[in-house]
């Protein structure tokens, strides 16, 4: 068989102008991604085109998980079943205890004229894409506007806070992880109740400005404080793996470990916002009003 021909029939001169224009457009998209609505619209269109492929691409992984679960021994499954039953009993007891406490808190809040907060309704979703990149801070889930998901909804897994919905399409949505650059989450230390802000740093999370006059210890659990009306209060966010007082600064030097499996969890729960929070999110001017 003869070798394939490589003779090009037409030769074009190098389109430097087009290269310049398209490179600038790409750089502009990079700079404005997740900041401007116009760029969000471009992503929305592109993501709608690629979603069927993303869904299809996630099926072999699903199949692998399924076959792996089939291959598990009967003994392992029985042990897992016993563990889950025990967990279920423990969680049900905790839920009963919580509902009694919630009722009590609700009564106290109504006496004090405060609003009752809770998780509200939620939607279970499956991750269909997490990007083949160590540093990807976006997930695509298989539920969208059709399931009642809205921009700004909080997303959790079975361990804690994963991120926030930043874009919603009809059948899918994008989740920005809490580790994404410049994403802020109002948190409080579970042990002391001291409030602070947790920042995403691209490859991790950090508690940048935790004052040294407050108490912070290794293994402290950080929960959402509920101060921003985006994340409901009480969701586990991170565990403090190191906390030390620094000389020459007013803040702790700390390292945090997210409690949720940010790039690992396959199934997530989207916590839908309260109507007031949605209205506030859709009307940025409202924040500026006195």
């Amino acid at each position, binding site marked *: 068989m003869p070798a*394939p021909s490589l003779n090009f029939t037409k030769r074009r001169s*190098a389109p430097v102008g087009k290269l310049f224009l398209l490179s600038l457009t790409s750089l502009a*998209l*990079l700079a404005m991604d997740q900041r401007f609505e116009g760029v969000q619209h471009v992503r929305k269109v*592109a993501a709608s085109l690629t979603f069927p*492929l993303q869904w299809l691409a996630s099926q072999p992984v699903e199949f692998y998980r399924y076959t792996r679960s089939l291959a598990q021994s009967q003994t392992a499954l029985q042990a897992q079943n016993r563990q889950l039953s025990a967990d279920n009993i423990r969680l049900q007891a905790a839920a009963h205890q919580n509902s009694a406490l919630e009722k009590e808190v609700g009564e106290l809040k109504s006496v004090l004229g405060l609003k009752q907060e809770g998780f509200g309704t939620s939607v279970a979703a499956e991750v269909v894409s997490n990007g083949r990149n160590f540093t990807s801070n976006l997930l695509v889930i298989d539920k969208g506007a059709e399931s009642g998901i809205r921009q700004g909804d909080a997303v959790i897994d079975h361990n804690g806070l994963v991120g926030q919905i930043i874009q919603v399409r009809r059948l899918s949505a994008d989740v920005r992880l809490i580790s994404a650059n410049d994403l802020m989450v109002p948190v409080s230390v579970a042990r002391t109740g001291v409030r602070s802000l947790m920042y995403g740093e691209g490859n991790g999370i950090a508690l940048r400005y935790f004052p040294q006059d407050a108490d912070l210890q290794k293994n402290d659990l950080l929960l959402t404080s509920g101060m921003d009306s985006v994340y409901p209060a009480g969701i586990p966010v991170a565990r403090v793996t190191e906390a030390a007082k620094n000389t020459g600064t007013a803040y702790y030097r700390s390292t945090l470990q997210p409690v949720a499996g940010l790039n690992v969890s396959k199934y997530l729960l989207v916590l839908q916002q309260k109507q007031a929070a949605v209205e506030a999110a859709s009307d940025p001017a409202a924040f500026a009003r006195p």
Partner: protein
Amino acid sequence: MNDFNLTGRLPLIPLLTTFAVALLLDFIPLPADSFFWMPPFSAMVWFFLILRRPQTFGLFGAFLFGLLVDAGTTSPLGQHALSFVLMTFALQLPQAQDWLKTPLRQAIGLTMALLFNQAILSFLNAIRNQQFTHPEMFASVLTGVLLWPLLDRFLLTFLQARRIK
């Protein structure tokens, strides 16, 4: 004639299937820490088309294809678009087209193109997220080059098969 006819029309369905399968393979949500070696199929297919049909696939196509890869792999929008545009421009230079005529040179060209592609992605990531990409991500270049002769032969056969009838 069993050559790849560069002057005729490309068969649309096999071409769209090629794009779809390349994107599909890149979209499989495998954990990056254990599948870092998976070759970038979209970039390889685009390299093939630029090599075999430079008069049809140009910078604008590279930009659009890159945007689709960005959207599907949850990368920042414009990242793959920029790397594909630059790679296409470099490969469409007359000197590059003259040079890439033997299988060995094509393999070297692909290595350089994929390394260039990965370097741009890493550079943009370093600027955007203030962090460096793990060096093992460059292993995908090696697997891509090893797979290239097979992919090249397969795509040549696949894309011309229906046109020979």
